[in-house]
């Protein structure tokens, strides 16, 4: 599955990563799988880093599939 990054996560991880769907196929599971595979991805474990599935902001319990578009991002700063 493809995972996108914006804001601080993108600064350390780049724009996206391709990963295998983790056994714990939830947003929280994706966070942990990425962080275990790469120490730089520890940023994803910070509570302020939010997630979306198919462009809808969601929480860590949301179930994901191989076709989900998952993104992790830091606080918005528009204007």
């Amino acid at each position, binding site marked *: 599955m493809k995972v996108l990054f914006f804001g601080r996560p993108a600064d350390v991880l780049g724009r996206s990563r391709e990963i295998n769907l983790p056994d714990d196929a939830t947003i929280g599971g994706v966070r942990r799988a990425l962080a275990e595979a790469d120490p730089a991805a520890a940023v994803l474990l910070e509570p302020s880093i939010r997630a*979306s599935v198919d462009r809808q902001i969601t929480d860590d319990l949301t179930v994901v599939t191989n076709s989900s578009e998952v993104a992790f991002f830091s606080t918005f700063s*528009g204007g």
Partner: protein
Amino acid sequence: MRIETRLTTETIDATRVLDRFTKAASGAGAVVSFTGIVRGGDGVTALELDHYPGMTEDSIETLAQETADRFRVSSLLAVHRTGYIPAGETVVFVAAAAEHRRAAFQAADCLMDRLKSEAAIWKREITADGGARRIEPHDKDHEDRRRWMEDDGGHR
């Protein structure tokens, strides 16, 4: 009620956008606009704004819709630029038209405060030495946002 939101990587000509908005808002008694310009100084030469195609447009549209629903405006416009924006250029433009001035002032003010912390945009300052510094909303921005969470909606 007319609501228009736009995301662009092109230069925003605020004077022209306001002129067009005002002409289209015929019948309104008040037009208020805000132009946000990239501040130079402290070695900052530009801002770089990243966005998430699809989600960012939706977030700005939702904020404009909610703002228009809350205040008595006849039209509301938000134009946000993304990408590399040199100091001195316009990063965001908001305009509100209403029958009376208070609603127009409040709608423009509220929409700007909400865009700062709720539009799906990520900002970095680019400095003359080639460095980049991530900008995240500070306490003042959250305080500004909270002004619009009061039940009276700032109608004091």
